[in-house]
């Protein structure tokens, strides 16, 4: 039997065993549900920005259009309604159906609110009142058209020159970056841990002795890493794909090509990161003989992953393009989580990505060699937990 067939048989067993388990299906479904929840939350935050409901009563009903325009210029979204009876308007405020009730003549408006008046709304109303007062003052001056003066004043604005074009899609890109960072962190942690648990399961159930009487240790290790890696990849494709489609369909993401790009880069970095971490997880797992000891022996590795995740989240939100961030995003233990986030934010340069990938591949080769030796030396030695030196010594 060729090594390829042996590796494939082992990998196929992992695929069948995992894809059929309830926990895999539930895990995938829950991940999609969480992602849907995130997308819907984003869509209400982005799309349905907060609307301020203003009730107008009496003479104040005349300012409806001017108020809407003035508020809009301040980035405030108001919904204006007419209230016949000021008393019922007040009770609407108490009930929370209205945010503000405006009464009185345009030149001296009265506002009733529940607790405090929104600052932007206050300024908008102040402007309307001041304009009305000014109109009355101008009207007393002969040979002057108040509207003409007001329009001239309104046209006089500052001229703004931006040094950098604003990126209207920055919020969307940040959301994508954080989602891909979270997905990669979870995938690497979950499937890395699964590799280790699989190794410990084989060791603790002693099935490894039968297996190694017919396949080589590296074939068994390679098959396990390959099989679980494919399961993880499938899950990431399904969850990421569903999330992307949903986000584009609901309009949360208006940049579908960037979303697809982020997903594809994410899948590439999953493969690179998984290969980097998986054999290390396997080597660590091979040192122990009981499932209870797995967590403690994996702690150093999972800590690095947690650190990479926390750093990525903070740096991408606050300082995605500083030198320190760029350096971290190139270093192998952090790159698989941080770099795809920076790519999603489109703050990484081509050479940074190339260097990161090359460093990843180089360090993965070294780690695979070392882990393979540890695994081979340790996997048949049951009993108390081994240290690295014992494992590296040939049995």
């Amino acid at each position, binding site marked *: 039997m060729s090594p390829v067939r042996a590796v494939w048989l082992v990998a196929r067993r992992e695929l069948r065993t995992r894809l059929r388990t309830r926990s895999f299906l539930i895990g995938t479904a829950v991940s999609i549900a969480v992602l849907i929840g995130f997308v819907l939350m984003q869509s209400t935050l982005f799309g349905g920005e907060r609307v301020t409901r203003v009730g107008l009563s009496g003479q104040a009903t005349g300012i409806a259009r001017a108020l809407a325009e003035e508020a809009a210029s301040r980035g405030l979204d108001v919904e204006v309604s007419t209230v016949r009876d000021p008393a019922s308007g007040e009770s609407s405020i108490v009930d929370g159906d209205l945010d503000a009730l405006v009464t009185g003549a345009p030149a001296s408006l009265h506002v009733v609110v529940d607790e405090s008046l929104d600052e932007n709304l206050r300024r908008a109303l102040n402007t309307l009142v001041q304009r009305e007062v000014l109109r009355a003052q101008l009207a007393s001056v002969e040979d002057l058209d108040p509207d003409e003066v007001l329009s001239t004043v309104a046209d006089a604005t500052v001229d703004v020159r931006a040094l950098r074009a604003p990126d209207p899609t920055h919020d969307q890109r940040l959301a994508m970056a954080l989602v891909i960072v979270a997905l990669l962190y979870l995938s690497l942690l979950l499937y890395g841990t699964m590799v280790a648990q699989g190794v410990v399961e*084989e060791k603790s*159930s002693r099935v490894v002795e*039968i297996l190694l*009487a017919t396949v*080589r240790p590296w074939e068994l290790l390679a098959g396990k890493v390959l099989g679980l890696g494919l399961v993880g990849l499938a899950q990431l494709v399904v969850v990421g794909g569903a999330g992307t489609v949903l986000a584009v369909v609901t309009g949360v993401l208006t940049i579908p090509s960037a979303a697809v790009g982020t997903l594809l880069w994410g899948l590439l970095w999953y493969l690179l990161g998984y290969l980097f971490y998986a054999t290390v997880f396997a080597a660590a797992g091979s040192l122990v003989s009981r499932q209870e000891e797995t967590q403690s022996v994996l702690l150093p590795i999972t800590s690095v992953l947690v650190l990479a995740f926390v750093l990525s989240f903070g740096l991408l939100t606050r300082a995605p393009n500083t030198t320190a961030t760029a350096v971290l995003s190139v270093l192998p233990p952090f790159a698989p989580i941080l770099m795809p986030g920076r790519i999603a934010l489109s703050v990484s340069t081509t050479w940074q990505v190339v260097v990161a990938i090359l460093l990843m591949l180089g360090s993965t080769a070294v780690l695979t060699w070392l882990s393979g030796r540890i695994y081979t030396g340790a996997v*048949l030695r049951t009993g108390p937990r081994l240290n690295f030196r014992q494992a590296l010594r040939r049995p």
Partner: protein
Amino acid sequence: METTRPALEVDGIAKRYGDVVACDGVGFTVGPGELFGFVGGNGAGKTTTMRVVLGVVEPDAGAVRWAGAPVDRAARRRFGYLPEERGLYPRMRVLDHLVYLAELHGFTTNDAHRDAERWITRLGLRGYRETEVQRLSLGNQQRVQLAAALVHDPVLLVLDEPFSGLDPQAVDVLSEVLRERAAAGVPVLFSSHQLDLVERLCDRVGIIRAGRLAACGTVAELRAGSGSTLVVDAPAARPGWADGLPGVTVLGVRGGRTRLRLADGADDQPVLAAALATGPVRGFTHQDPTLAELYRDVVGTTS
């Protein structure tokens, strides 16, 4: 099937674990179609020897040969192995598991399925084809483990304690299977603490003590020079009645029957006379020493 029937040769295997000597020059041959019983106390080196044969343990010295050539991976792939520490995936279903192992031993998927089903039926596991291994009773898990050792039609069987944990019915089935495999020309090496079973089943027996093969041969060969066993049924005899008789060792007394070991060439008539002197003698029978008795002679009663 090969036309030249190969044999397993174990030649001077030595293995130490730190200060512990597991094997110290163990050597024997299991010929084609031969059932070879491997007996010895706990820690005597049986398991280490078997693990060396399967390549699971690298020996410090010595060699294992199959059909005259050093055992390589291709040869081992056709061996059937039942390890001392049972090992199966706890959450895998019986049929899937056997198919998987047969495939790992080089079977195509179709052949693997056919043979897995065949052994499931043979070993009485039909009702558990789709059951997870961890849900089976220990005895049934043991049957699955046996099926795992047999499923790829091995050319050599190496079974570490195959009978432990089996009910009498399964013991009969397994004995029959082992005889049948041997009849097909397969050398069968197995260890057991059930010496009566080994005696009944095996063509040859190896007794291992402290990492060395203390005795090896057919049961008849092992008996040579160890005299015979005399069972005397003298109900009225008092304990110690046979003490001091020349060439006689008392093995045990139970219900008026005394088992004696009579050294080679010793005369049995003085024993009969001594027995008659105690009162009536209802039985006076010569028996061959059992393997258990021979084993105690070799190993000593302490182990």
